[in-house]
């Protein structure tokens, strides 16, 4: 198989471990005195966007930064709980760059690009250094040295953490660096501003159309290039662990302008979330993977066992992860653990009011370590569980169920994190990234900060130095055209005046996708889902009800725009899942499984990244393939047994 000519992954020459150094040496530089003549637009202020905005401004560029929240400090990276991986080998447990690289490739079920992943592992250590210099209060040993914990999919202890709020502390580090540059007038910050379209001039990404969410004003912004760091599309499922404002709109708009959407079917369902309690449910809450260091997952052995958990004797419990995956046990990767939990529930062994739940039990840990130690390690998570459910995990096991958490797919990018549109860079969760078909725990923060602090600033500089994007202003006709389309879409949504609310459409879309493109997918189900999504989309444009006007703070209108995009994006997601006739990582096709029910890849046919080209809202996108070559690691069946 050869890659599509449209997809030049642009991987540097040389030995795997020299590639990044070689590329850095090749990159052209912009003279310090000239940097201030260039402007870069960065959408999103999470780890990837915030870190890039701060770093590019420090280098001397002018940055315009955008976020939909009222402050850049609230981007959803803030919610990451457990930690960040780095191959520091501070524990002396034989960790190394190679081992982190290997674990990530294997964890991703051999569907990621080797060169990118190796670079990520190489940079991982620098991230920790940088964050410590910023004053991120990572957990420490009594000796004053940094502490580590273990995470799923690894047999070494390489995760750095700040209690259960690692994402918060890393994001505040990036946010503070960003605020420093705002103070230095190198970054212009646009809070409560949502990107609604990407503008291309002469085939290059040169700007965006945005809406001021307080006044409703539509604004045009021009720059030398654009970085999208806008996060994942988990909210296409309606219920997920994402923040309510997370959407696919920025990447979907770019897709409609010609950027290729890669591997959207790789969605991560996290095994340990608090189960759904009713129809009004607005989001799902994650219970950090770090809990599986000491918590044991189990379900009753007998079907329909309604006894309270503490009355079920030891020999009538099935510690299913320990039974099925003895070498990794409760620290099996997320995709595998989620499927195992679902399997138990499908067999009628689920617990809780609707039978959609399994236990995560700390009784043994409390016996072994004492309640105080368990409290020190997980107190804030246990309190959160208690607040939400009214149950006390110190005396009875948590009830948990898988929920959508992270999306590995996203816009296709080359080694330099640039999409197929020149000047459009995509970083963090928004790109199709380094995680292949499944992401390991504590690797999202690592990737976001690697992209933001250490990769995109250099590749963007090189782009500006070598391409020399010329002078363009917002007077270019492309800006006027994009602005007109944006205004028309807003007017159209406001003028339908139907009967169905945005949230109702979103819930219905979410149910279609969760049922048919969730933890288990089939050909028939996906074909059905595509039909249903098309019908729902048609209904949306006939029967939507949005109150209020366009020139005011209007949260229903904001949501309507995002749901309109999800209604198109959801179809691409299902098409990708339909075309990939194999099971790998977070993509599980029921037709393709081993006798033991494990994911069965088809390396002969599917060792590629699938990148989709937009051809029209109701027409089939064109598939482009990037062949994945495994030169350092042999393709093998992924096993955690």
């Amino acid at each position, binding site marked *: 198989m050869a890659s599509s000519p449209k997809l030049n992954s642009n991987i540097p020459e040389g030995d795997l471990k020299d590639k990044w150094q070689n590329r850095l040496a090749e990159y052209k530089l912009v003279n310090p005195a000239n940097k201030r003549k260039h402007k870069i637009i960065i959408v999103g202020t999470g780890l990837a966007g915030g*870190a890039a905005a*701060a*770093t590019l401004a*420090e280098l001397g560029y002018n940055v315009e930064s955008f976020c939909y*929240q*009222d*402050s850049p*400090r*609230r981007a*959803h990276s803030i*919610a990451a709980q457990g930690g960040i991986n780095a191959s520091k080998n*501070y524990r002396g447990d034989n960790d190394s760059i190679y081992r982190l690289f290997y674990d990530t490739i294997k964890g991703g079920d051999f569907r990621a690009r080797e060169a990118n992943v190796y670079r990520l592992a190489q940079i991982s250590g620098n991230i*920790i*250094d*940088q*964050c*410590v*210099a*910023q*004053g991120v*209060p990572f*957990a*420490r040993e*009594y*000796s*004053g040295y*940094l502490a580590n914990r273990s995470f799923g999919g690894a047999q070494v202890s390489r995760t750095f953490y700040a209690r259960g*709020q690692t994402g*918060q*502390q890393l994001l505040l580090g990036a946010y*503070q*660096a960003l*605020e*420093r540059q*705002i*103070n230095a007038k190198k970054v212009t910050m646009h809070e409560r501003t949502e990107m609604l379209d990407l503008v291309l001039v002469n085939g290059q990404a040169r700007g965006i159309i945005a809406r001021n969410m307080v006044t409703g004003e539509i604004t045009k912004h021009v720059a030398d290039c654009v970085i999208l760091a806008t996060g994942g599309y988990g909210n296409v499922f309606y219920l997920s*662990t994402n*923040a*309510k*404002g997370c959407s696919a709109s920025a990447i979907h708009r770019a897709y409609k302008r010609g950027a290729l959407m890669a591997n959207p079917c790789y969605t991560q369902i996290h095994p340990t979330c608090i189960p759904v*309690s009713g129809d*009004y449910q*607005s*989001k799902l*809450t*994650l219970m950090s993977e770090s809990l599986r260091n000491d918590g044991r997952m189990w379900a009753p052995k007998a079907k329909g066992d309604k006894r309270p958990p503490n009355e079920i004797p030891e020999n009538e419990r099935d510690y299913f992860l320990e039974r099925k995956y003895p070498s990794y046990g409760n620290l099996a990767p997320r995709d595998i653990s989620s499927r195992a939990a679902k399997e138990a529930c499908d067999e009628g062994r689920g617990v809780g009011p609707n039978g959609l739940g399994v236990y995560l039990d700390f009784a043994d840990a409390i016996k072994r370590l004492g309640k105080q130690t368990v409290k020190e390690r997980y107190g804030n998570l246990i309190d*959160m569980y208690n*607040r*939400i459910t*009214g149950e006390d995990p110190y005396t009875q096991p948590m009830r948990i169920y898988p929920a959508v958490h992270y999306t590995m797919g996203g816009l296709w990018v080359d080694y330099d994190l640039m999409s197929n549109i020149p000047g459009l860079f995509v970083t963090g969760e928004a790109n199709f990234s380094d995680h292949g078909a499944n992401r390991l725990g504590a690797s999202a923060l690592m990737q976001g900060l690697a992209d933001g*602090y*250490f990769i995109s600033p250099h590749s963007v500089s090189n782009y500006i130095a070598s391409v020399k994007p010329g002078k363009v202003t917002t007077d270019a006709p492309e800006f006027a055209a994009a602005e007109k389309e944006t205004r028309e879409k807003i007017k159209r949504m406001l003028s339908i005046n139907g*009967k169905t*609310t*945005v*949230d109702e459409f979103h819930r219905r879309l979410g149910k279609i996708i969760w049922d048919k493109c969730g933890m288990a997918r089939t050909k028939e189900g996906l074909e059905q889902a595509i039909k249903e999504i098309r019908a729902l989309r048609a209904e949306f444009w006939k029967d939507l*009800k949005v109150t209020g006007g366009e020139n*005011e*703070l209007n*949260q229903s209108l904001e949501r309507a725009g995002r749901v309109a995009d999800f209604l198109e994006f959801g179809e691409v997601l299902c098409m990708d899942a339909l075309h990939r006739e194999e099971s790998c990582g977070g993509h599980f096709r029921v037709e393709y499984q081993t006798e033991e029910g494990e994911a069965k890849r088809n390396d002969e046919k599917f060792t590629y990244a699938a990148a989709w080209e937009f051809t029209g809202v109701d027409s089939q996108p064109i598939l482009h393939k990037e062949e994945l070559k495994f030169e350092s690691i042999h393709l093998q069946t992924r096993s955690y047994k």
Partner: protein
Amino acid sequence: MSDMNLTLKVWRQKSKDQKGCFETYKTLASEHMSFLEMLDVVNEKLERDGKDPVAFDHDCREGICGACSMVINGSPHGPEKATTTCQLHMRKFKDGDTIVIEPWRAKAFPVLKDLIVDRGAFDRIIQSGGYTSAATGGVPDANSILIPKERADEAMDAAQCIGCGACVAACPNASAMLFVGAKVSHLANLPQGQVEAKTRVQNMVTQMDKEGFGNCTNHGECESSCPKEISIKFISKMNREYLGALSHVQKSAAAE
């Protein structure tokens, strides 16, 4: 599952420049709902009836982004200790309750619409000095900076602040000293933050005053309403840092 009938009195205000007033809504809620889910239900009904839904800030809905900003029955984030509005659940209320919902009230946090306020003042305080000036790259190995566990733990206690502004909303003086004290203390506790400690505390306090926040008169409402239980001791710490910085300035002025 028991349902409860509730009466809500909600602050409605079209925009920054218009006058607001309380509107009354009746709703049914389940004890398993979060407070925001209860409001979602009210809003969806308003939308179906063609009325403007209640605007409120929210995002992560798991108590960490700090977007929530409602005063519930007089308490920022409502009656439950150490809990943001999004994590407050309706089992804390009972059938027949009347619940009064208002935005944060403070001169430095103007209302933008209904329950949404502008907290840009907090960002501007951070801009004035709430960071270490470590540019990307060129920093030493992480383990070359040893930090005693107690210092790191105390820094983390302060760094947990989610920047929601409940401390300001709770304070009779609308003081932001808990917010500023938390950031000053987080960084002052760490060797990395020491170099700039003196200018940081002065600049942040100056900006805080400029934004129109009041002073601390030791009511302690900030600590008791803080969803992350940030201790009021960090205000004392900030005051000590500030005095230290002032005397340093005086000494250097005298030396010159």
